[in-house]
């Protein structure tokens, strides 16, 4: 535990500690880099093997030679592409619906005291804390008893059900961070509550809403466990892969995942740059 000594920040040198960071922070720095390496290794495997030869159309463990052929045939496995399209549809749909449903509740929770608030908090908490298997099993029980055929629609319903809670939490944090006086100021300057919301509150919580939406999108597109219960015969991208693992996955899986990975990274970087620019 001595290794975790709170050393000085780079800017502030601790008295009596000499120049630069001490031994402990240096070891910790090395450790952090090792952890980052650990985090990245599977990603590297994915990217590297997307360039591997695979004579039978299945990814192999052995390095058989470099090829970009799979990138040329990225969409050749039709039902994998379909599954990806399903995933995107569900992710977009659940993102939009859960933001529309969750934002007002977040406002209510952040700004009002009302009867049932504690219960609402508990439900939101439970929705987030409930294990995915339970959420999936309960939704399947429900759909089975209702005799509702499972498919894209039930996947969408399930994804909205878990995304709403995350949207509420993220947007609520943003709303809570907002100075209530801004609302008062708007009202004071003649804005009705409706106008005040759209002219003041909404633009200010918009980054929170966008963040919540992105989180919902990410959670949805990566969900396997809950989806596996309510998907019926419809396959999403993770489900397709999960099924294909049994017989060996085609290299296209790594190719498309590399696309998704790069897309996510690039979007995040752009978002960071835009946010930095907008801040003085």
């Amino acid at each position, binding site marked *: 535990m001595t290794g975790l000594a709170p050393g000085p920040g780079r800017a502030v040198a601790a008295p009596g500690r000499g120049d630069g960071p001490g031994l402990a922070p240096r070891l910790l720095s090395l450790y952090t880099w090792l952890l980052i390496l650990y985090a990245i290794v599977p990603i590297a495997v994915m990217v590297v093997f997307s360039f591997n030869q695979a*004579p*039978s*159309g*299945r990814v*192999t*463990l052995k390095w*058989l030679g470099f090829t970009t*052929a799979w990138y040329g*045939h990225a969409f*050749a*496995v039709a*039902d994998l592409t379909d599954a990806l399209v399903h995933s995107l549809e569900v992710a977009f749909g659940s993102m939009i619906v859960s933001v529309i449903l969750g934002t007002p509740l977040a406002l209510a929770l952040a700004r009002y005291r009302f009867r049932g608030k504690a219960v609402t908090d508990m439900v939101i908490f439970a929705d987030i804390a409930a294990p995915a298997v339970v959420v999936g099993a309960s939704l399947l*029980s*429900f759909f*089975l*008893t*209702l*005799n509702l*055929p*499972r498919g894209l629609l039930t996947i969408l319903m399930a994804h909205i059900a878990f995304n709403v809670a995350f949207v509420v939490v993220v947007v609520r944090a943003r709303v809570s961070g907002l100075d209530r006086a801004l609302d008062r100021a708007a009202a004071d300057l003649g804005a009705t509550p409706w106008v005040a919301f759209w002219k003041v509150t909404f633009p200010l919580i918009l980054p929170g809403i966008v963040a919540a939406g992105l989180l919902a999108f990410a959670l949805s597109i990566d969900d396997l466990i809950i989806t596996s219960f309510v998907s*019926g*015969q419809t*396959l999403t991208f993770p489900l397709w892969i999960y*099924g*294909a*693992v*049994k*017989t*060996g996955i*085609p290299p296209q899986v790594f190719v498309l995942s590399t696309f998704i990975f790069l897309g996510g990274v690039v979007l995040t970087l752009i978002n960071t740059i835009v946010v930095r620019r907008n801040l003085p």
Partner: protein
Amino acid sequence: MSKRSNSGRTIDPALLRGLTEARVSRRGLLQAGALGLGMAALGPLAARTARAAERDWEAWWKQQKPTDELVFANWPYYIDVADKGAKNPSLDDFTKASGIKVKYLEVIQGNAPFYAKIAPVLKAGQSIGYDLMVMTNTWQLTELVMQDWLVPLWKEKLPNFKKYASPSVVSPDYDKGNRYTLAWQSGFTGIAYNPKLTKREITSIDDLWDPAFAGHVGMMSDITELGSVALLKLGIDPAKSTKADWEKAAKVLKEQKDKGLVRQYYDQSYITALEHGDTWISQAWSGDVFQANAKGFKDLKFVAPKEGVMLWHDNMMIPVGAKNPLSALAWMNFYYTPKTAALIEDYVNYVCPVPDAKDVILKDLQDPDVANSVLVFPTEAMYAKAHDFYTFKSYAEYQSWNSVFTPIIQG
């Protein structure tokens, strides 16, 4: 699907049971109060759909209009492919010949899981969206038949079957007279191994119990396969086994697991484990090993152990609610030609249901390895080694098998 209750048949007892239980559920609803909405709909879950057997199927077939579509649900890697998975020559030939477009889906990963997915939909009287699907002669097929969820085939439209089918797939025990099914492929369950890792030849099922391979023995998670191999090891014919035999088999399987011999109980992924070298020796399906050889894992060997092999049949069938049943029939008939069967066989390497395909493979496709393999075109001697699965007569019997073998894989 419309309900035809005026068929003059006496009411099915199961239906009666379902209905009375549904009524209980309504009383339970009042008692349980708060659980409300969830249970209110339990009625439909229990209700039976109209029994398909009541239909006059001949009349039904005659009402069907030809369509230009076919939705085909099959297992992965079970059809010929070209162009890095972009094309299926046999299906393309079919489209060229008939004008029917095929939507080919590799959605079946196992009999039980696939059945569990479609059963609730079929039970609800809804269409599962497939016109044709392929399932093995295990309990789930029996259940499909018992539930009347399969459309009896219209033989008039299947002249090629009569003409080309191997005797081994005509009127099998599990579907007398091929009322519901036509074989897609048959296959042997034997042992695959990597001699470089086992460092010796494998000849016997006992080798799966060899402590020298501890931690590197692959077994199947399909409990029908798992139980059967243990029965063979004990010298019992699975088809004629009894509950007492099953328990004996479970005992040796448990020993095998407890000694740390078993690496994993695999579904189709057993082949990947062999390819990766995680397992050195494994229960295996014949065709998979050939396919693995073909794609570069040349070390892997398939062996029919001296105790015998299991012979199974994967069958094409039409589920009720199919939208393009005539297209399905057309494909079945098209499949039972030496040329189509050869195209597919040369790729999947299981047991071909069309013996005449051998010549096509030898001459047109120039692939003597496949054409001369006893595992693709088995000899009498090979068939003599083969055993059938136990045929379950009731759900209770299946459950009993289940309860003996499931605890082993769920450890």
